[in-house]
């Protein structure tokens, strides 16, 4: 379970969110919704200690530094070493060592061998996204963060990704942000809305039909 207490983040005098409390149970997919600039990515940055913040964030009672190897994030723009091959990126960006056979077996489900041997600068946006997915699969995290991660995926990959997320959710806690409501609506368990410097947890979201667009219109617009 991810437990957040008294979380406050501000840049100078600009408060992004103030005294936020929430919990995300294990084995659930949580979705954070909000307008552009509401602080969705900032919230992820705080959860991952990429930004300084005030408050307390615990992963099953432990601080991030004790669970770093169990945490992985998939970014929209997929940071990769463009000057190196896909295989070398996998080797350098994985938090834990993985056997070559396992890397190949997993990677080939997403990208062919010749693509993985080529430098990433020759990849299309979709291929970079797939390489990001390979890293996520091989990382086997307990806590997975998705920052607009479904953007740019083709239909088939998106469908596969959705199934993969559902499968992963049996063992992982997944926190996603983004605007692709159709993609996330069928799979999310918990909905959070960032609005006016606070975070609203819609506990009856599933019972109310689980429509993200409706929730967006009702609570944000």
């Amino acid at each position, binding site marked *: 379970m991810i437990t957040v207490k008294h979380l406050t983040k501000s840049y100078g005098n600009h408060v992004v969110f103030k005294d936020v409390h929430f919990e995300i149970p294990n084995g659930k997919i949580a979705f954070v919704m909000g307008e552009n600039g509401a602080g969705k*990515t900032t919230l992820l*940055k705080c959860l*991952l*200690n*990429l*930004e*300084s913040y005030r408050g307390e964030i615990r992963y099953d009672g432990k601080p991030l*530094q004790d669970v*770093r*190897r169990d*945490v*992985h*994030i998939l*970014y929209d*723009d997929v*940071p*990769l*070493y*463009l*000057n*190196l091959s896909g295989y*070398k990126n996998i*080797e*350098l*960006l994985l*938090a834990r060592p993985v056997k070559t056979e396992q890397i190949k077996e997993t990677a080939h489900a997403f990208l062919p061998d010749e693509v993985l041997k080529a430098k990433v600068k020759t990849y299309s946006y979709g291929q970079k996204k797939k390489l990001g997915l390979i*890293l996520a699969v091989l990382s086997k995290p307990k806590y997975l963060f998705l920052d607009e991660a479904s953007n740019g995926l083709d239909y088939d990959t998106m469908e596969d990704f959705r199934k993969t997320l559902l499968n992963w959710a049996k063992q992982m806690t997944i926190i996603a942000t983004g605007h692709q409501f159709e993609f996330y609506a069928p799979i999310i368990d918990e909905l959070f809305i960032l609005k006016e410097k606070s975070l609203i947890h819609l506990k009856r979201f599933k019972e109310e039909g689980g429509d993200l667009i409706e929730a967006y219109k009702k609570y944000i617009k």
Partner: protein
Amino acid sequence: MKLIKSILNNIGKEFKYLVYSYALLLIFTAVLALSVWNLYLQMKQAENNYQEYLHSRAEYEKQGMDIEKALHAPSDVQKQENGNGSEIEFVDNVLKYDYDNVSKALTIMRANRILTQTLEWLSFFFFPLIFTIYGLYVATYDFKYKTYRIKAVQTAWYHLLLAKQLTVYLSILAVVVVTLALSYPVGLFFYRRISGNIPIHDFHLNVPMEHHVLWQFLLSLFICFLFSTLGFCAGVVFQRFSAPAILFVVYHFLIPFLGKYDLRNMVAVLGHKVFSFYGNFQLVKPVAVPVPLAIVLPIVFVIVCTLAAYGIAMKQSKYVKGHF
């Protein structure tokens, strides 16, 4: 234990990146090429000096002068400053002067001088330039590719920085040691080659070994670590490569010494204490600074730079936007 394991793991990855990206190979090739170039220049210098000597000897013979007597007499060189600040040399005994120049050129090519000559040539101009840029590169390549965003989740920020900084030092140590190890046989080869063209046993000059090569090696490493730290810290603070690189190139090439506490001046003070500069490279005469101060101040500078860079980095966002 956990800290050491994390840092060692990151050092391994840093080395792998530097190998995969050919950055380490590029640095090593550049340093080795400069070293070989110096040894080649020394050989050409010895050949030129010998030609000058032969020319003077022919002149002496043509004028019926006693060669042996001239070679046993002092050369008596007087230096006079020209109107434009340069020096003019007035040589009384040209033959002896040319003989001494050949002897000196041959002496510094001997096996026991190769390492000294290599360090002397590289340490004061090329190492500061190359390794500042190198430190800057190691600090910033993860900013360029935005991969800090992934690494900073996997590893504590200061573990990552410490691993990078240690990688810089270890790789520099490797580059310098391997360069010296390869320069030695190259120097021997050039000496053997010139032995075929010049009767080396006819030229005797006792140029004393004034300083131990170990001190020279340690000073060279000190200079490398000093300037690579400067580059590394600038990279961490500015999170980009180009602007600090340009600033440093301007500082290195265009700006004169900024007083006696300028790093370059203190390095020059130490340089003149440990090297004699008989070879191709002549180090600028520094403004006097007590040697202990010239050692302590750069060390303090390295520590303060590192602490300041880490302190600033802790407060900066790790969600880097990516720029070079």
